[in-house]
C-alpha cells in the first residue's frame, strides 16, 4: 500500500486528525500563555512588564476567538456542534473542553478586557461620533461612571477576575493536553505529563508571541522599546522554556528507560518520519538554539541592539519550535500503527477543507483580529498618558 511501511490495521492508514487539529492546541496555547504574561503584572505586581499588559490581553482575545474555528472546520457535521453544549457527554474530555473554553472567554477574558479599557471606552464614546461612536457606546454597556471610586472598584474586580483567570488559563490549556494524554489506546499521547507539558509549552509560546508582537508593534509605530520590560519578559520566557524543555526531556528519558512494548515503534518513528520535524525543527532549531540565545542574554551583558535581535530571533524560533511540538504530538501520534508493526504517512493537501490554505488563513485571522482590536482598543500606555 502506498505510503505504508510494515503492517497497519486497515482502517488506520488514513489519518483522522490533520493540520487543523495541530493549529487548535497551538492557538489555544498562545491564548493561555499570553494571559499568564498579563497576569504577571496584574496579580504578581511585576511592574516591568506593564507595557505588554494590554497587548497580552488583546493577543489572548484575538487568538481565543479563532481557537474553535479549526475544530469547527474539521468536524464532519459542524452544524451539530452546538450539541456539545446542549447535550454534553460528561465523560468526554472534548465535551468538557467546550465549557472550559466558554468560561474562559466569557467569565475571564472579556470581563478583564472590559474592566481594563472601561475608562478609555467611555472617553471614546463621549468624544467619537458616527458608527465608530456607536460601537464605543455599545461597548460601555450603559455605564459611563468613571469616577475614581468606580475605577477603584473596577480595579478590585479586575484583580479578582485575574486571580480566577490564572487557574482558568491553566485549566484551558492543561485540558487540551488531557484530551490527548487520556487516550490510552495511543502510547505516544497517553502520559500524565501531557497536560503539564502542554501547559508550559503554552506559556512559552504565549510569552514569545507577545514579546515578538510588542517588538514588531513598536517598530511599526516608530516608538522606543522599553528595554527593562523586554529584558523582564525575555527572562520569564527563558524560565518557562527551561521548565518546558526539562519536562519534555523527562518524558523522553522515561520512555527510553522504560522501553515498553511501544518503544521500538516510537523510537523508529523519531529516527525516520519525525526526524526532521521533531529532532531538527522542534528540539534543535526550535528549542536548543532559542534557549541558548536566551541563556546568553542572562549570562552576559550585551548591548541593547544585540539583545533586541537575540530576543526577536529567540521568540520567533520558539514559536516555530512549539508549532513543531504540536505537529509532532498530533500528527506523530497517528503515523504508527496501534499494532506497533507499521507506519503510515501524512501529506498535507493544499486547497482542501483541511489543507494548507485554510490553515494559513486561520493563522492569519488572529492577526487581523488583533489589528482590529488594537485599532478599537489601543493598548499603548504612552498614548493613554498623552491623552490624560
Amino acid at each position, binding site marked *: 500500500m502506498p505510503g505504508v511501511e510494515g*503492517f*497497519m*490495521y*486497515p*482502517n*488506520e492508514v*488514513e489519518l*483522522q*486528525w490533520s493540520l487543523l487539529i495541530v493549529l487548535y492546541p497551538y492557538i489555544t496555547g498562545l491564548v493561555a500563555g499570553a494571559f499568564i504574561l498579563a497576569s504577571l503584572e496584574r496579580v504578581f505586581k511585576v511592574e516591568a512588564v506593564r507595557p505588554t499588559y494590554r497587548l497580552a490581553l488583546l493577543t489572548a482575545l484575538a487568538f481565543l476567538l479563532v481557537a474553535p474555528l479549526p*475544530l469547527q472546520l*474539521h*468536524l*464532519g*457535521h*459542524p452544524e*451539530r*456542534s452546538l*450539541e*456539545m453544549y446542549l*447535550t*454534553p*457527554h460528561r*465523560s*468526554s*474530555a*472534548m*465535551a468538557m473542553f*467546550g465549557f472550559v473554553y466558554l468560561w474562559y472567554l466569557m467569565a475571564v477574558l472579556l470581563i478583564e478586557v472590559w474592566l481594563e479599557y472601561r475608562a478609555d471606552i467611555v472617553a471614546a464614546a463621549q468624544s467619537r461620533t458616527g458608527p465608530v461612536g456607536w460601537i464605543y457606546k455599545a461597548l460601555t454597556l450603559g455605564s459611563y461612571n468613571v469616577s475614581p471610586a468606580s475605577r477603584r472598584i473596577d480595579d478590585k474586580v479586575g484583580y479578582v477576575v485575574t486571580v480566577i483567570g490564572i487557574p482558568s488559563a491553566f485549566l484551558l490549556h492543561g485540558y487540551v493536553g488531557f*484530551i490527548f494524554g*487520556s*487516550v*490510552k*489506546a*495511543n502510547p505516544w499521547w497517553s502520559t500524565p505529563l501531557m497536560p503539564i507539558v502542554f501547559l508550559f509549552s503554552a506559556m512559552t509560546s504565549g510569552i514569545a508571541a507577545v514579546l515578538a508582537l510588542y517588538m514588531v508593534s513598536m517598530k511599526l509605530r516608530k516608538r522606543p522599546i522599553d528595554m527593562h520590560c523586554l529584558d523582564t519578559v525575555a527572562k520569564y520566557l527563558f524560565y518557562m522554556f527551561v521548565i518546558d524543555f526539562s519536562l519534555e526531556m523527562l518524558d523522553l528519558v522515561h520512555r527510553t528507560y522504560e522501553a515498553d512494548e511501544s518503544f521500538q515503534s516510537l523510537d523508529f518513528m523519531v529516527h525516520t518520519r519525525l526526524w526532521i520535524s521533531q529532532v531538527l525543527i522542534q528540539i534543535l532549531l526550535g528549542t536548543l538554539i532559542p534557549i541558548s540565545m536566551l541563556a546568553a542574554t542572562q549570562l552576559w551583558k550585551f548591548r541593547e541592539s544585540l539583545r533586541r535581535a537575540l530576543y526577536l530571533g529567540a521568540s520567533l524560533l520558539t514559536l516555530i519550535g512549539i508549532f513543531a511540538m504540536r505537529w509532532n504530538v498530533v500528527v506523530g501520534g*497517528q503515523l504508527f*500503527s*496501534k*499494532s*506497533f*508493526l507499521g507506519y503510515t504517512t501524512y501529506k498535507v493537501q493544499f486547497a482542501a477543507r483541511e489543507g494548507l490554505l485554510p490553515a494559513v488563513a486561520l493563522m492569519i485571522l488572529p492577526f487581523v483580529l488583533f489589528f482590529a482590536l488594537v485599532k478599537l482598543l489601543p493598548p499603548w500606555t504612552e498614548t493613554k498618558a498623552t491623552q490624560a
Partner: protein
Amino acid sequence: MDFTRRELLIRSSKLLFLTATAARALDRTGEQPAPGDTYHMADHWWGMIVDIDKCIGCGTCVRSCSKENNVPDSYFRTWIERYEVSENLQHPTVDSPKGGIDGFPPAARAELKSFFVPKLCNHCENPPCVQVCPVGATFLSPDGVVLVDQSYCLGCRYCVQACPYGARYFHPEQETAEKCTLCYHRITKGLTTACCETCPTGARQLVDLKDPKDPVHDFLRNNKVQVLKPQLATESKVFYNNLDGSVR
C-alpha cells in the same frame, strides 16, 4: 343537560359509530407489534467467539459484511490478518491485503508458524470510544452492542482515535464515525450476523452471554481463551480460542 330521549339516542349512536370506525381504522393502519417482535434488550448480552484454528482466511466474512452493511471501499467493519511468526514473538510478519476481502496469496515462508486472525469491533463492556464521544452519539446498548447514532455524530473522530483495535473508520460520504454493529438489524430479529452466517468453518460465532443455554459458557470454561490487548482493560466481548502471544 337537557336532551330529549331522541337526541340522546342519535348522539349515542353517532359516538358508537365513530368510535367503532376509528378503532377499525387504527386496527388497519396503526402501530402493531409484528409477530416476531418479541425482542427484549435486557434479556441479551451479545459477544462473539472466534476460533483461530478454524479460520482459513477465505475472506467470506469480510465480503458478506461489506455487502450486508454497505461498507465503503477500503474501509472495514471486519477484516482478517495473517500472522507469520518465527521464534521471536515480538516481530511477527502480518499482512491483510484489502482486509483479506479476496482471501490471501500463498504464504511467502511456508516453514513459519502461520495463522489467520479475524478482527472486528470488540464490543467492549468498558469501551474507550464511548467514553470520549463529546455528545454521546456512540453508546453501549443495553444488550451489549457498541453503536453509533448516525444522526447525532459530529464527525470529530475522537472515537476513532480512542479505539485501541482500529475497528472504527470515518465514512467518507456520511462524514460520521462508523463501525461493526454486530449486524444489530439482524440479531434483534433472531438472526445471526452476516459474518457468522457465511463463515464456512464456523470459526466465528455470535454468542449471547445472558442466555444460560448458549454454548459460549462451555466454550469459555473448556478452552484457553484470550481477548485482544487485555492490558487495556476494555473488557472486550470478542473471545479468541488459541490466540497466539504475538497477536496485537
